[in-house]
């Protein structure tokens, strides 16, 4: 074997000692970690490397794609027939709504004009296909096959035929990365469809979500449907998001633990719709720095004490 068996004489130069190299590389990695986790300053490096590696990535995806195609080809005919029947049934069910939608939209515009409200922004979407889920086991992200070239921007909402599945967080030239709703870092403002109660829904890992910061006596029941409230200016209001499956009112905690499951096929693969961004919301009012001082003496005395 070519391994050097003994400590070499000093005239064979082997560079710095292993421990020195270890400290160097570990500190370099730690710097990178902090820069990426805290300050998000490394996106351009990621963009460059990912663009260069794109052909390789597609090439390695081929066996998986081929296996998927093969599986689809061999799908049982009975299954396809059943699916076809189901789709026809759903189309009939929704036909009523679809036929009346144009009428309703016009009526809505008239009514809104009467009320002197801003017309709701028309939604445009771009159909994309989920290519694969990322390998990173610590977060829940998928890659879709549309990117900068197709006009996808960071922050756009991604929906499927049932409801919201997530949000675009990184855009590459030909692909983009979607953070799923079930990720622990993802939060979405929602309201309870039944009573309009506003809340924030956050991912809880393991495919579930959690309605955060709701008082123990909050008006939420098992089976409630949560829809987007649109307060964030990212999601359009009224998109279905999740269903409440468990409400745990423990008097030991001041907040109720409300577990929800996503309505849309968040962890499934298939076609999705990337919704175009919403029009800018009016700017937020500036923070009131000083408390408004009551007129008269009180104000003056307060100033003096400072």
């Amino acid at each position, binding site marked *: 074997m070519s*391994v050097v068996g003994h400590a070499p004489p000093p005239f064979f130069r082997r560079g710095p000692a292993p421990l020195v190299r270890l400290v160097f590389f570990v500190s370099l990695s730690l710097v990178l970690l902090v820069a990426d986790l805290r300050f998000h300053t490394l996106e351009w490096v990621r963009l460059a490397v990912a663009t260069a590696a794109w052909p390789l990535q597609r090439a390695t*995806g081929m066996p998986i794609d081929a296996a998927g195609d093969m599986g689809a080809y061999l799908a049982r005919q009975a299954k396809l027939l059943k699916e076809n029947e189901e789709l026809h049934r759903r189309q009939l069910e929704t036909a009523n709504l679809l036929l009346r939608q144009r009428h309703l939209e016009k009526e809505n515009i008239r009514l809104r004009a009467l009320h002197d409200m801003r017309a709701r922004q028309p939604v445009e979407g771009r159909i994309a296909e989920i290519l694969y889920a990322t390998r990173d086991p610590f977060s829940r992200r998928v890659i879709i096959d549309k990117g900068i070239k197709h006009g996808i921007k960071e922050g756009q909402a991604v929906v499927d035929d049932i409801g919201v599945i997530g949000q675009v967080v990184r855009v590459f030239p030909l692909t983009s*990365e979607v953070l799923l709703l079930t990720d622990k870092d993802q939060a979405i403002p929602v309201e309870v469809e039944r009573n309009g109660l506003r809340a924030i829904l956050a991912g809880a890992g393991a495919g579930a979500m959690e309605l955060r910061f709701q008082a123990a006596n909050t008006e939420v029941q098992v089976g409630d449907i949560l829809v987007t409230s649109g307060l964030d200016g990212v999601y359009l209001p009224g998109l279905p998001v999740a269903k409440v499956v468990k409400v745990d009112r423990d008097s030991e905690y001041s907040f109720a633990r409300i577990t929800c499951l996503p309505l849309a096929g968040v962890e499934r693969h298939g076609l999705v719709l990337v919704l175009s961004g919403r029009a800018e919301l009016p700017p937020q009012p500036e923070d009131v720095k000083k408390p408004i001082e009551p007129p008269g003496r009180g104000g003056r005395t307060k100033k003096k004490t400072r």
Partner: protein
Amino acid sequence: MMQPTHSSRRILLPVSNWFIVLTLFVALLLNLIPFGRLPGIPDWVALVLAFWCVHQPLKVGMAAGFVLGLAMDVADASVMGQHALAYVLLAFAAAGLSRRILWFPLAQQALHVLPMFLGMQVVMMLTRMLGGAEFPGLLWFLSSFTATLFWHPVTYVLLIPQFQSQDKDVNRPI
């Protein structure tokens, strides 16, 4: 006598640098295959890196681990530096233990490598969970065990060029 250990009398051919680069690149490609969240898929880059660090500690070391780690961080859409840190520590441990490991038969070599892979995964988990990520589940650690199972075949595959004899014999390729 065919055993690729120090206790064997067999003298191997010197390794080619291009072969090392090629195998590391192929391992990177294997890691790019999008298996999603399927548990038990071994980390090929870690496996091949550990192999070369054990067998050629003077040629492959922490610098290679760092560069490969950065590539994996981009490919996995994980935090920059997560794989780099883990691979650097793996390379340090493998190179440091290489003189010990190579005296053992292959099965026991694999037992030495297993804790390194597990340690690497624990390092990755700690860095991510400090950053507020979710716990990936115990099944995630299965990939270390599958990687250990591959130590035996991978050793033979990666040593094939060095097993060849000095004077070419048409009837006996290896």
